[in-house]
């Protein structure tokens, strides 16, 4: 690697900024809990303590805006989440929980 010291400093500062601002930007814990409770009412399936809705939101929003469950039919969601499982490297359990949420939310 031929990064100059300036670039290295820039990269370190960027990481430091990201890590220190994490808690500052975080949602209040009470709100996070409320979101979890409300989502668990939609789907009881969970993985690592996350509901299907949370898995759907967390995994999809890593790369792009989330699309509403009503946008596709159940059969289409089966194919799309199958495809996204491969692309985003999510597990089979996460795939099933997300599909179950998307179908139930419709």
């Amino acid at each position: 690697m031929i990064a100059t010291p300036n670039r290295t400093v820039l990269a370190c500062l960027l990481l430091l900024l990201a890590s220190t601002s994490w808690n500052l930007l975080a949602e209040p814990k009470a709100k996070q809990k409320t979101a979890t409770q409300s989502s668990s009412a939609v789907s009881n399936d969970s993985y690592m303590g996350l509901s299907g809705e949370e898995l759907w939101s967390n995994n999809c929003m890593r790369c792009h805006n989330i699309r509403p469950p009503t946008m596709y039919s159940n059969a289409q969601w089966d194919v799309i989440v199958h495809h996204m499982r491969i692309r985003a490297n999510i597990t089979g359990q996460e795939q099933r929980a997300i599909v179950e949420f998307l179908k139930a939310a419709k």
Partner: protein
Amino acid sequence: MKIHRCLVAIIQIALVMAWPVARAQEPTTDGYVTRKEYEKLKAQMLAMKQELDALKQENAAVSKQASVESHAVADIHKEVAPKQENAESEASADMHKEVTATTTPSVAELEASLLGTTKFLVAGWAEGMFEARNGNVSTFSASFNPIFLWEMTPKLLFDSRLEIEPSGGGTNVNLVNAQISYLLNDYMVLGVGEFFSPSNVFVERFEPQWINKLPDRPLAVYHGVLPNISVGAQVRGGFPIGPTRANYAFYVANGPTLNTFDARTAGTLDFNSYTDNNDDKAVGGRVGFLPIPGVEAGYGFETSKPGFQGTKFADVRDLVQSVDLAITRDSDLLKGRINLFAQYAWSKIDHAVYDPDGSLGFGPLPLTAKRDGGYAELAYRPTKLDNDFLRNLEMIFRWDHLSREPSGLGDPEETRWTLGLNYWLSPSTVVKAAYEWDKPAGQRNKNALFFQTAMGF
């Protein structure tokens, strides 16, 4: 009762009227009624009275019967009507059940079996763009990028993307990828074909223009230091590690070709050559780690022997590497969502002497070629504001860079700064405007203005 009184009155009037007539018919001596006449009239009156009583009784009987019948009819109606309505309702419900029972599975089956037992979907995206770059003529461009997804079974998927765009006097159609994937278990997928190179997270995840937040793609990671497309086989998946998660992707592929015939490109890798030039296969992969939801850091690499088999470059080895970071965070404090994407890549190619006998006009050129570059992009969208217009706006800032060593060969070092403003018409439809400050070393600026709209479907 009125009828009875009328009858009595009629009879009395008839008697009164009949009396003089009778008298006129039977001669009398002194104007008085004879005994015989009296008895005759009495008998007639009794007969008429009996007939009148009979008529009364008959009339009363008829009225009573009519009343009874009327009540009976009403009672019957009361009894029958609800039963009939219930019966009709039940019959209707039964029929509905039958119809529903036969219809619901039919719709579901129809939906599930439009193409037999497989599931087929055309997804993808389309874009239209205007670009005005200093030193070039301004131009519009467009492309249509359908993605064909065919789920043969719940474990078997074929996916392929085409890139269709107007060019010159015709239309270019490129096969971007075509891969068959099989889910081995919950944590492992096997893929074979032409796929987005897992060592380059940008092309795998952020390259489609409805996902890429700026109209153009960053230097170095897109058609630069890293491979974009690989032809080969891969194994990939994700798994939990306690409260965190990790993912991986490893592959073997044909690998790049080493450029050796031109001074400008000598020592660089051609990743667009999809057929192999030797028996050595490229090996690569990426591992990602997600300590908490919304944060992923990764490391990718690929190594190969890119020289043509049988030449003196056959043993030259290359190594390309990449680190990446993606952070997505909803913030109440900032009333919106923050995205930070960053990726930095670098490559090294073993020492070699290019054009050793000078026959190509630029040698001998001994060098250990290195390139590096990457980008950092920060985006903010005020998703938590009440105003619909503001909520759909997104501001983006990007820094991207590409350099090579030794300098003075090939493309010059280049650093760009880009500011963008997007408006989201839907979750997957966006209108973008951006301005890019671009000053390659030793050249005049290539600043550019972009307008683009992209729609994912």
